[in-house]
C-alpha cells in the first residue's frame, strides 16, 4: 500500500476470500456448543478490543481429546475459528494439539504450511485469507491462544500433583 497503486476491481471476490462459505457456516452454526462438565482442560479467552469471547472445555482420555465444548460470541472470524478448532481437536493427542496450534499460528503469521500440513488443518485452512487483515489475526487466534494457555495450566497442575 502507501501509494495509490492497488489493482482496481477488488470487491466481493476478495471478501469471499476472507468470509469463506465454511467460515460463515461455522459462524451461523457453531459446533459443540454445549458446556462439557467435568472437563480436564478449561480455557477462556477475551479480546477486550472488540469484546469477542470464547470458552473451551476438553475431556481427556489417556492424553487424547475426547468430548469438546466451545462457547462464545463475537465476530465471524473469532467464532468460526473456535468452532472449527473444536471439530479438529477431537481424538488428537495433546502433543498433536500443540503442533496444530503452532501450524495454525504459523499460517496466519505468513509461514505457508506444506500441503500435507495444510491438509491436517482441515477446514481451518479457510482462515488463511485473514492474514491480509492484521487486525483480524487476533480474532482468528483467540480460541487457540486460550486453548494453549489452558493446556499449560493443565500440564502444570498435573506436574504439581505427580
Amino acid at each position, binding site marked *: 500500500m502507501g501509494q*495509490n497503486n*492497488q*489493482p*482496481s*476491481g*477488488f*470487491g*466481493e471476490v*476478495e*471478501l469471499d476470500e*476472507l*468470509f469463506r*462459505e465454511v467460515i*460463515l*457456516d461455522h459462524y*451461523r*452454526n457453531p459446533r459443540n456448543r454445549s458446556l462439557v462438565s467435568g472437563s480436564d482442560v478449561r480455557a477462556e479467552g477475551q479480546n*477486550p*478490543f*472488540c*469484546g*469477542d469471547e470464547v470458552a473451551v472445555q476438553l475431556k481427556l482420555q489417556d492424553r487424547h481429546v475426547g468430548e469438546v465444548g466451545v462457547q462464545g*460470541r*463475537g*465476530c*465471524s*472470524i473469532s467464532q468460526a475459528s473456535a468452532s472449527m478448532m473444536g471439530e479438529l481437536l477431537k481424538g488428537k493427542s495433546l502433543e498433536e494439539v500443540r503442533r496444530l496450534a503452532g501450524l495454525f499460528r504459523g499460517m496466519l503469521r505468513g509461514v505457508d504450511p506444506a500441503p500435507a500440513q495444510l491438509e491436517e488443518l482441515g477446514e481451518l485452512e479457510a482462515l488463511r485469507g485473514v492474514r491480509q*487483515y492484521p*487486525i*483480524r489475526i487476533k*480474532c482468528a487466534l483467540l480460541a487457540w491462544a486460550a486453548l494453549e494457555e489452558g493446556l499449560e495450566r493443565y500440564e502444570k497442575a498435573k506436574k504439581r500433583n505427580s
Partner: protein
Amino acid sequence: MLNVKRIREDFPVLQRKVYGKPLVYLDNAATSQKPRQVIEALREYYESYNANVHRAVHALGMEATDRYEAARRKVSQFIGAPNPECIVFTRNTTEALNLVSYAWAQHHLGPGDEVLTTRMEHHSNLVPWQRACQERGATLKFIPHAEDGCLDLSGLDSLITERTKLVTVTHMSNVLGTINPVGLIARQAHARGAVVVVDGAQSVPHLPVNVQELDCDFLAFSAHKMLGPTGIGVLYIRPEITDQLEPFLRGGEMVREVWYDHATWNDMPYRFEAGTPNIADAIAFGAAIDYLSALGMEQVRQHEMALTSYALKRFRELEEVQVFGPGDVTVRGGVVSFHHPQVHPHDLGTFLDREGVAIRAGHHCAMPLVRSLGVVATARASFYLYNTEEEVDVLIAALQKATRYFARATERVTQAKRA
C-alpha cells in the same frame, strides 16, 4: 456555506483509492486528514529553519522560536483564551488530562472529596480520575444520561456538593455525538467552588469553542483531530488557577534556576513544557488553525450539522440498523455510532473497507459506555468538513450491500446444509 469541492483539493489523501475504490474517509473522530498547508508547514520548518527553541542566539533558533510562539498565539486566539501564556503544548488530549490529574488533583483531592464526571467519557477522561480518586481517598461520581444520550441534569444540584472538588465533562461524546451543556455545568460547579475540566477533543475541532464562554478552568484537545499533525495537543489553563498547580514533568526548559539539590520553576506556560518541545508539529498545528479560522468554525459546524441530518435520515432507511445518540442535530456532532443485529461491527468494518469506506468498529475507548448500550462494540462513522452527502450515500449503499451479503451468505449456508 463551505466550498467542499475546493476544500477537498487541499487534502492529498482524499485523492487516494483503496482497493480500487475512492477513499471515503469516515473515521474523523479517531483522527482527521491534513491539508497540504499543514504538510507544507512541516516541510518548510525542516528544510529551512529547524532549530531548538528558546535561548538560541542564532538565526535559525530565533526564527523557530518566533514561529513556535506564533503557533501558541494562534491557539490562544482560536479558543478565546485571555493570553498565550494560558496555552501549554502537550502530546495529545490524554497527556493534557493527565497533566491536570498530576499537577492539580494529586495536590488538592483529599479523603471524602468527590470528582464528578459523566458516564460517556473517553477512557482518557475517566482512568486518570479513577487513579487520582483512589490514591487520594476521593470518590468518583457520575452525572447520568437519558436513553438518547443527553445528560440528565435534573439532579445536578445534589450531585455537585461542597465535597465536589473537580467536575470533568466531555464537551462532545466520541460515541454518541452528544454535545454537552458544559457552560451550564461549569457555572454550577464554580458556584460550589469546584474546578472545571473540559475534554474538548471532539468539540474544538468541530464547533466554535470559547473558553471564557465555557467558563472552564482547563480545556484539553488534540491537533491530530483538527487537521493538525500527530504528537501535539493543548491544555488551556485559566490564569487564575496557575498558582494551584505543582510542576508535572521536570527537566530542561521548565526550570528557572537549578542547583545540585533543588530547582526553581520557569514562568507559564514553559513550566509545563519540559524538554525540547514538539516544535515542528506545534508550528504545523498553527497552520491547521489558520486553515480552520479562514473557513470559520461556525461554517464548519453548519456543514457538519447538515451532513449529520442527512446521514441520520438515510440511516432511518436501514430498518435493521440501530443508531445511538441524540436525534436533534443541534445537540449532536457528526458522529454516528450504530448497531447491526446481523453483522458484527468488525465484519462490517472489514466489508466497508473493501468498498473504500473507512469507519471504526470497537469500543471507541469508551468501554463502560458501549457496554451500557448493551453491545460489546459498535460501528461508527464520523464526519468532517471535507465529507459530502455523496459519501454518506456510498456509506449507506455499502451498508445495504453488507446486509445483503451476510444474509445471502447465511442463506447459502442454510441451503448447503439442507442439500
